[in-house]
């Protein structure tokens, strides 16, 4: 177990270093930072001075170490477009993305499991077949088109829901939340549905196939033979055992939700980090891009690490196999 954790940590550190290197090269090889800061008509002396100030005359590994040190402290310099510290910008945008991702994740998990169980128990029913067909189409639909179609129907044609921004937000310390106002909640609806659909269909299909598998096993037959009610068999025994793989996939899907949040945020002009990144790419705002790269890599590496560890903790079979193998 310990060796496993250490190996994983080592691998995570390696990935982070590689990503840090990419964002470091963005800083250093795209354009000339001295030119960017001083403009074209600075004297050579001024250039040299700034070069020394920024540490650009130092050898490569010194610069890289300094970059990593700053990155660990969260310092990525000033955004070229907004002339404000990147850390502040990201802190402002973080709540929007996290609230959106949370809503989408909750929606996907709840409806995914409910529909999955339903389609597994009523395998031949009309509604199950309908849900399965819909989910097949859902897999082929790109996120941004789902968003556009939802906007077209609910915002443009019916005019029920807003189609862009977060609505009114309430500041709780540095955290801005949209949960406390009606317009905030209304603006959350379309983006979270858009973002959740992909994950929802995936969880639904997974729960369905796992559930069908479990329902065929001997211990379910035995539970039925003992005369347990359908309810106890389905939810006490079958559902419980399907949840381990569901948990792993959900953890990994959290990453997908964060990735697709970039698309959803762009469609709905949601002021989150993904939208910030897309804008920074279009305006060549290197510091923001570099910070986002490092941050997103950190998020993914952590998610994977946690999912791996949870898998060990939750599934007793894995632990037993390990300990018996050790004897």
């Amino acid at each position: 177990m310990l060796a496993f954790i250490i190996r994983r940590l080592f691998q995570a550190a390696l990935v982070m270093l590689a990503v840090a290197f990419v964002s470091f090269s963005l800083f250093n090889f795209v354009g000339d930072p001295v030119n960017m800061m001083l403009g074209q008509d600075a004297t050579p002396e001024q250039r040299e001075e700034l070069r020394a100030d920024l540490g650009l005359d130092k050898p490569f590994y010194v610069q890289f170490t300094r970059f990593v040190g700053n990155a660990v402290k969260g310092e990525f310099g000033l955004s070229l477009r907004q002339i404000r510290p990147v850390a502040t910008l990201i802190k402002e945008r973080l709540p929007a993305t996290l609230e959106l991702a949370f809503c989408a994740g909750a929606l996907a998990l709840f409806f995914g499991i409910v529909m999955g169980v339903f389609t597994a128990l009523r395998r031949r029913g009309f509604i199950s077949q309908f849900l399965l067909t819909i989910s097949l189409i859902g897999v082929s639909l790109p996120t941004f088109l789902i968003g556009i179609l939802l906007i077209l129907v609910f915002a443009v044609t019916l005019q029920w829901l807003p189609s862009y921004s977060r609505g009114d937000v309430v500041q709780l310390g540095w955290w801005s939340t949209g949960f406390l106002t009606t317009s905030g909640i209304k603006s959350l609806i379309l983006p979270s549905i858009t973002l959740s659909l992909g994950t929802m269909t995936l969880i639904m299909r997974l729960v369905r196939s796992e559930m069908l598998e479990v329902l065929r096993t001997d211990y379910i037959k035995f539970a039925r033979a003992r005369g347990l009610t359908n309810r106890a068999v389905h939810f006490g025994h079958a559902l419980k055992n399907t949840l381990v793989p569901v948990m792993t996939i959900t953890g990994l899907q959290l990453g997908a939700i964060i990735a697709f949040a970039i698309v959803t945020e762009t469609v709905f002009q949601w002021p989150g980090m993904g939208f910030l990144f897309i804008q920074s790419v279009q305006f060549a705002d290197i510091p923001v891009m570099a910070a986002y790269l490092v941050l997103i890599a950190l998020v993914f590496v952590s998610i994977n690490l946690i999912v791996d560890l949870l898998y060990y903790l939750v599934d007793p079979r894995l632990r037993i196999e390990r300990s018996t193998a050790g004897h």
Partner: protein
Amino acid sequence: MEAINRFFDGDVWYSFKQSPITIVAAVFALICILAAVLAPLIAPHNPYDLAQISLINSNLPPAWSVGGNASFLLGTDQQGRDILSTIMYGSRVSLLVALCAVVIAILMGVGLGLLAGYVGGRVDSIIMRLADIQLTFPSILVALLIAGVGRQFVPRDLQDSLAIYVIILSISLTGWVQYARTVRGSTLVEKSKEYVQAARVIGVPRWTIMFRHVLPNVLGPVLVIATLNIATAILTEATLSFLGVGMPSTQPSLGTLISEGNNYLFSGEWWITVFPGLALIVMVVSVNLLGDWLRDALNPKLR
């Protein structure tokens, strides 16, 4: 001729005939491909010839609704370009990018997978570790990051003309892992078979065994993954273009068209976005269905 006869007698063709959904999908896929390939010949207008477009025709609704014009079947955009023609030209770009990306991904993936499986040892563990790491990130994110970072290294004035290369590269760099893993797996199986041992015994060089003997036997599953990956590549390209890091508006793909039309959604010109969107969906769904059918048809276990 004999090969053709054998194909029509074979069970792949039989299973094709047995599945009406697959036939429909194939017809739609064929229409999409023909419309894209023959766009310059059969498109009703040339939307990128300035002499043919006129602002008088801008923002016309589809032909069947009030104010529509019969010569612009699906309406026109804000510059008076025929939507049907832009879709046909756009599918060309979308398909071209997807095909190139998939071909490059196959070359990379099959090569690395064969190497990892046949050579083994440290080469194997390095390649597979790389693949593992890449798989922890969603492919759309990797493509977006590569495209977004990649274009920063291209000089500003060349960004539009080089965009197609950046985007093909970013999609193919995210696609290779699947091929590499599959090919590595089947290479490990093939490697221990007698014909490989026999070849080794009679002194056939290592590389010849790899490419002449093992390679043809591990390509089966690659075909299926490639078909499904074309659909994914079309979607990825559309998403990147929608986000503004893909094809520029001077050479629009379906994603670029949707993204540009999206700006006119609120003024009521829904057809500028919706029709390219529908074209994209039809293309992706039919390719996906074909891929699913191919997977089942080539898998003897399912028969």
